[in-house]
């Protein structure tokens, strides 16, 4: 048994805080290695996670791979002229007579973001394998942006960077809670922890 494995196995046995910390560090090192393996195979855009959030946001915006047309998803806010005069409906989305000016927010017209004609192997283009039953790959017209990596102290680093879109005026909603499980990488045991509040 090598030193690293011995340290990892000592997670529960000794209860030694130092060795548990070392075990955790080794586990995180393994995760880092696994992430690094995926950088090329899964076309990750690697950013320096030590930079401040505002600089990361700037890098994300300027990255040449960030070709998603955000304006396509923007809510349509008509110009004042659209509704200043009753009966004039430039955008054609206002069904009610607009005697007074008010703002209508309507979704942008769907455009062909992924207009590739569905083929027999279309699922391999949009999914890691095959889609869930009942989902047609050709119906996917939206876009999926993923943030991976380590969070900062308040666990909101990634999310704040996700707000690139929000800063452009798009609604961003999050869901889900975090489950915290400490893992002993070799003894196959977990140490569940109570999630932080707030």
């Amino acid at each position: 048994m090598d030193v690293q494995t011995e340290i990892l196995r000592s997670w529960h046995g000794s209860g030694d805080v130092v060795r548990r910390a070392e075990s955790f560090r080794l586990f995180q090192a393994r995760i880092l290695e696994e992430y690094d393996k995926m950088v090329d195979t899964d076309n990750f855009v690697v950013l320096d996670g030590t930079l401040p959030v505002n600089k990361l946001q700037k890098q994300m915006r300027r990255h040449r791979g960030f070709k998603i047309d955000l304006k396509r998803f923007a809510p349509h806010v008509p110009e004042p002229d659209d509704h200043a005069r009753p009966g004039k409906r430039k955008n054609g989305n206002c069904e009610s007579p607009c005697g007074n000016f008010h703002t209508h927010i309507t979704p942008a017209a769907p455009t062909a973001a992924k207009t590739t004609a569905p083929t027999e192997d279309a699922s391999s283009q949009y999914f890691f394998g095959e889609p869930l039953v009942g989902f047609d790959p050709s119906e996917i017209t939206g876009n999926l942006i993923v943030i991976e990596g380590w969070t900062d102290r308040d666990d909101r680093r990634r999310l704040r960077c996700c707000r690139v879109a929000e800063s452009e005026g798009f609604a961003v909603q999050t869901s889900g809670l975090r489950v915290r499980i400490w893992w002993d990488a070799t003894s196959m045991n977990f140490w569940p922890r109570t999630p932080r509040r707030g």
Partner: protein
Amino acid sequence: MEFLAAGEIRDAAREAAAVADADDVSLLHAADFADRCERQIMPLLQGDYLVLADRYVYTAFARDAARGCPARWLRNLYRFAPVPDITFYFRAPLDVAVHRILSGRPN
């Protein structure tokens, strides 16, 4: 949306964690993700929305592989997941990453 488990699945994962092995917990997380993929992600992608995922299946690939699950088995487990248009990876040195994680945990 966030990738990590929530609600009943989260509670079940926490309760089972003490006795389950890596494969079992991976299956539990995959089941949770499948549910959210079906209910949250796919309908939005079909509705021409922009979906921002705060971590994704790559977290499971890295985390569960580090726990000893075969990479190929993990890829097959999450084969239903849609491929992202772009993935930003915030890489940090190990010391920074560990510090960030531990600084957010009480013990």
